[in-house]
């Protein structure tokens, strides 16, 4: 299984994800912009995602709702800025569960064709501030977690 690479340099407002998929670029792009397909993977394995609205065109809005096993619902919404098949997708993203509105982020997803019908995905997310990027308003942060030395070394050496 391919590895997800996540970079979040300390003191910056960005997170960069890269991941290789074993499918042609057109197919991966379709999985990001077709409402029936995106509902089948977006949001991870713990939640069920329903598509409230999704108009994958410049200026189109989107809203997804996730329901956890406890029945609580979490809404996410934004607007598509650029939908250029099969190479680029740019949209705004806001999580409705934060203590206050307005912490919008800008996500740019690039799809690059690789040999052997594979695709490299690069997802750049820019937050409004370092504090937003570091999830200081996000619900559910656990106190007192301990980091392993490996995680520590990774975080400091990344920079």
């Amino acid at each position: 299984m391919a590895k997800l690479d996540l970079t979040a340099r300390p003191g910056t407002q960005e997170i960069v994800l890269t991941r290789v998929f074993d499918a042609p670029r057109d197919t991966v792009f379709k999985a990001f912009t077709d409402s029936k397909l995106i509902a089948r993977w977006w949001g991870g394995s713990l939640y069920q995602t329903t598509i409230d609205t999704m108009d994958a065109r410049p200026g189109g809005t989107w809203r997804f709702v996730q329901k956890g096993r406890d029945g609580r619902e979490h809404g996410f919404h934004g607007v598509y800025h650029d939908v250029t098949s099969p190479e680029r997708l740019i949209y705004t993203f806001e999580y409705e569960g934060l203590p206050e509105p307005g912490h919008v982020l800008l996500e740019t997803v690039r799809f690059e064709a690789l040999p052997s019908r594979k695709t490299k995905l690069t997802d750049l997310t820019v937050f409004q501030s370092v504090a937003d990027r570091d999830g200081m308003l996000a619900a559910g942060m656990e106190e007192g977690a301990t980091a392993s030395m490996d995680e520590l070394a990774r975080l400091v050496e990344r920079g």
Partner: protein
Amino acid sequence: MRRSTRLNATFAALADPTRRAILAHLASGEASVTDLARPFAISQPAISKHLRVLERAGLISRRRDAQRRPCRIEAKPLAEASVWLEGYRRFWESSFQRLDAVLEELTAQEKRGSSRRRKRKRP
């Protein structure tokens, strides 16, 4: 110190490459100021200034051994900073694993579709 203030101090402390290198050194064990200064072409007072920033952020502690004052890394502030990012990483990791399965199905369908089209072309 409130958690948000502490996180701010952590990230401000980490925003400097020399301080990050100092922490990387301390990740493998305690060290004296002299040891820490050695790889850098900067003065001992400059290193001490970096150590004060790290100490104020709670990222290192310094023992009271009068001569050497050895420094030690403190994991908790870094752990707090990384917990949320780990949650973010897990969200995307599990989403992309599910996407792998969806893509496998789609590419299999595409292959079946194209082989059927090739068969139909035969007279």
